[in-house]
């Protein structure tokens, strides 16, 4: 096995490892929020699309870092976007939580009975609504930009790889491969969380919705505030 393949393998296992620890804690709430709102049949497909989007973003970032061989300049460049994404994610989770709780008169926004009227709610549903499973791909693409320690750490390695490889096309591919390996590694843990929260026995409980919605609102506020401070 060549050294680059060993590196991919190392980052795949890093992804696995980090997934079950770090990701469940930090990014789990997002997955939980979506899964609680989905019909059981759609949970897997939607989640896979979300992860596909997320990993695509990682791969693009990895490619850029690999090709340019720099980490700091690019992260400084996208810092503002990341801040925005974090605030956006916070807002999405808060609105989903509010909708799920049934406290605001629009009913369960993402439930099966919801028929949006306003432009904002309609576009909002288009973006993260459950009715269309395909919407999870762009959502993943966007939320892949969420600032995250392990992703940064993997990107540093991609940039370092780029510095070592002189041919910039090869460096681009290496960076992309590394981030793909890392991203795929993080999927099993998050799918497991989705599977658990998406399962029927959890959803059949009205009280789960209540507890879940309160938690989601808190998590959303947390993301929002951290985003503002970022």
């Amino acid at each position, binding site marked *: 096995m060549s050294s680059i393949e060993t590196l991919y393998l*190392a*980052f795949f296992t*890093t*992804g696995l*490892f*980090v997934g079950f*620890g*770090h990701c*469940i*804690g*930090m990014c*789990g709430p997002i997955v939980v929020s979506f899964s609680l709102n989905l019909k059981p049949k759609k949970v897997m497909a939607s989640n896979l699309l979300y992860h596909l989007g997320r990993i695509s973003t990682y791969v693009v970032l990895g490619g850029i870092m690999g090709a340019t061989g720099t*980490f*700091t300049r690019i*992260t*400084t460049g996208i*810092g503002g976007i990341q801040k925005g994404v*974090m605030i956006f994610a916070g807002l999405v989770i808060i609105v989903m939580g509010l909708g799920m709780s049934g406290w605001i008169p629009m009913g369960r926004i993402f439930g099966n009975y919801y028929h949006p009227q306003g432009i904002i709610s309609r576009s909002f549903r288009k973006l993260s609504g459950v009715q269309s499973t395909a919407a999870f791909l762009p959502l993943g693409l966007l939320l892949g930009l*969420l*600032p*995250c*320690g*392990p992703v*940064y*750490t*993997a990107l*540093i*390695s991609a940039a370092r790889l780029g510095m070592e490889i002189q041919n910039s096309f090869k460096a681009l591919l290496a960076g992309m491969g590394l981030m793909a390996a*890392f991203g795929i590694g993080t999927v099993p843990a998050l799918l497991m969380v989705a599977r658990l929260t998406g399962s029927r*026995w*959890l959803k059949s*409980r009205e*009280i*789960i919705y209540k*507890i*879940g919605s309160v*938690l989601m609102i808190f998590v959303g506020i947390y993301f929002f505030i*951290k985003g503002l*401070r*970022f």
Partner: protein
Amino acid sequence: MEKIRRIVEGNDTLAGKVFDISVQSLIVVSLISFSIETLPHLSETTRYILKAIEIITVILFTIEYLLRIIVTQQKIHYIFSFFGLIDLFAILPFYIASGIDLRSIRAFRLLRLIRMFKLVRFSRAIRRFHKAFLLAREELILFFSVIILPITTEATDHAKIINCDVHHGTCTRSLRDTDVILDINPKPVKAMKDLNFTITLTGKQPVSAPYIDLGMPGMKMGPNRVTLKSIGNGVYTGSGIIVRCPSGKRIWEAAVTVPDIGSVEFIFDVIY
């Protein structure tokens, strides 16, 4: 067989009642001895007696467990039932602990408190709790798993104390006969910036250059290694980046490994 079953499972015969009461007393004795064991400054004799009590209770509990498996008609059902698992966990820690040395894991001993749940079988009031627990099981599991997560991350965060001020000057830690001096530039040390790491080693130099692993205490983020190159006189330099954690936690750890000698940890805060 039928007779033993009536004794073990029922309480309508005298022998059955005696069996139940004996098991209950045994649980109480075991719990009391556990409580005594937690007291400080116990004499050798007391400890010896407690140890003996522990061994005897475990043996009797094991016999009880095996008896219950033998007499029940639905063996698999019993083994994986609430009480079956409680009965197993009441004795399992003892056997595991006698196999491997688990004294370091003090919390492991707390597992003995599971024996308390063995009493559930005999109390109507507690049985009601058990029923209530079964009804609310899903909610409780979700609730506790959500609660435990932030608690564990918060708790581990403060486990390590800053031992180095990288913003003003260098930090020194000793490793056997060598002093390891860490310096990070430019100062103040900020995350998401290209940083220069310098390690100076006094005394005997290692065969190959040391390296630094960056991470956050209690928060695994994957490998972030700074490789260093010797520039002579025991000075090694390399470049690396400390990433920013969106949670806002700022305590970082630099584990410096000197090949063939060992490693030291510098814990410091960075500016975001």
